[in-house]
């Protein structure tokens, strides 16, 4: 089985993010692997270990992704492709999906694993749109994967009414939730070994396509501006005798907030 997994370099959400004049202030930002993609990598590596799969990752944009890709190598990924092209600066989900389609078509893969969303956009669209473009079956928000045979996998998806158990015919696309696994910490030896491994960096032309073909010039939507989040203000905080302050808060909930 050949697995393609996607990883995106995204802003670290643990740090404070400032907005000025409709844009995000770059100063002080740090970048990390998207949390959901780390689970996708772990899923691919587990399938390699348990079912003998061959694993390839692809990353689009992000500038210098060497550290991130090496970390994924150290986790157990075997091959890495990085698509970097100035035309992709404002790429939306549809453009990413088109680029991934090109990568997929070059590689004869059986299974594509993506994180269910990226923590910078929180869109949750790319993997699903990719499956539509490829005409492949797709299950999103996957929390468990089991290989049935060369042609089939069984996945669990967290749905509205419970856990949906779906049998998928390969090739297929799945997008995974963080609850699918606990990504491993790469061992020091793996990190050392990873430094020797090659990363296949290419632009759109080298991928056999062009900015126009993947839709860079005709985005369906674009971010007009960033705004500050309408953050809530903390209200009244009570300290002291538990019985007294609790009674006081219940009174406020009933008579001021009117929630009871």
């Amino acid at each position, binding site marked *: 089985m050949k697995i393609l997994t996607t990883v995106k370099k995204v802003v670290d959400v643990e740090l404070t993010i400032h907005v000025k004049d409709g844009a995000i202030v770059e100063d002080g930002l740090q970048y990390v692997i998207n949390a959901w993609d780390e689970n996708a990598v772990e899923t691919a590596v587990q399938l390699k270990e348990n079912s003998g799969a061959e694993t390839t990752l692809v990353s689009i944009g992000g500038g210098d992704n060497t550290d991130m890709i090496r970390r994924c190598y150290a986790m157990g990924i075997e091959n890495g492709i990085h698509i970097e092209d100035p035309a992709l600066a404002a790429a939306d989900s549809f453009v990413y999906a088109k680029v991934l389609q090109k990568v997929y078509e070059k590689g004869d893969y059986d299974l594509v694993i993506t994180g269910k969303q990226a923590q910078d956009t929180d869109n949750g669209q790319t993997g699903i749109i990719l*499956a539509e473009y490829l005409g492949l079956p797709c299950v999103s928000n996957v929390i468990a994967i089991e290989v049935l045979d060369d042609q089939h996998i069984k996945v669990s998806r967290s749905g509205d009414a419970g856990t*949906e158990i779906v049998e998928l015919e390969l090739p297929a696309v799945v997008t995974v939730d963080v609850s699918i696994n606990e990504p491993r910490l790469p061992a020091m030896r793996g990190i050392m070994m990873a430094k020797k491994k090659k990363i296949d960096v290419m632009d759109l032309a080298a991928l056999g396509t062009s900015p126009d073909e993947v839709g860079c010039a005709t985005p369906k939507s*674009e971010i007009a501006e960033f*705004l500050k989040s309408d953050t809530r203000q903390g209200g009244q905080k009570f300290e002291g005798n538990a019985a007294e302050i609790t009674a006081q*808060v219940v009174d406020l*909930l009933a008579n001021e907030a009117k929630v009871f």
Partner: protein
Amino acid sequence: MAKVLVIAEIKQGVIKSSTTELLSKAKAIGAETAVVAIGSNIESLIPGLVSAGSDTQYVADDPGLELFSAGPYASCVVDAAKQFGANLIWFGFSESGKAVAPRVAAQLDAACATEITDVTLHGDQIEVTRPAITNKVMQRVKVNIEELVAVVRAGAFEATEGITGTENVIKLSPPAPDLKAVIKELVSDASGDIDLADADIVISVGRGAKDQAGIDLVKELANDLKAGFGSSRAMVDGGFMPHGKQVGQTGKIVAPNLYMAFGISGAIQHLAGMNGSKVILAVNKDPEAPIFNVADYGIVGDLFEVVPILREEIKKIRT
């Protein structure tokens, strides 16, 4: 004139409030409205779809649609959207909506926006507002084409009082099943539990509850109030709560009338999943806990001491 197609959210034979909320917003922006309802044995829901505010009802009613499957559901939405000539297609904030919306957008070659909190029309120009970067910023997104598929964030739109529609039912032919992604089984969440997404009050526990005894103590309050019962990621990772009960950006995003957080410090991912709640109460031993920065009412104290008093005081007020 804008034409809005709303995907009805149906759960266990009941039309959920998001359907009315989305149709209310559609009417408020002066759009023509239609709804598409997908399921098995849903004929009886038609009057409810009309009173939810729709002027046309597309109904895909087939035994093959009893269990959710993204492919066939997307086919129904695309069919209805084409018949209606919809330029705005809105899903409520559900796992099925998030799975189907990108498919519909790809098939219709429309734009796609998830988690939107507002939509405005300037002539043909569509604009949406949505949170991004784990709720840390908002984006104003300009749509460059005339068709947009959107998933609306929980609690973003309010239902208009007294809204109603007109009956004009159009039956859709059943879609082909997805033979390459076959739904085998639905393992229901713990039966009898109140759905976090629907609950008027949501109560969550965090690390401060320590163990099962702490969880059970807070759960009694949830039972008293018929509240949805969730938790922070820490309690899921610790194996105390099922992942389906995790409130946060990586779990369920909720926007109830009242959210009560017990022993939850307030990690950014958790806050992103509940800060749309109307009123927030937080109970935590640590006066510096970040949860107090978003709570309307905060009690600095030990939940093991506070919860029993809270139950008594609430009982008093409700009798």
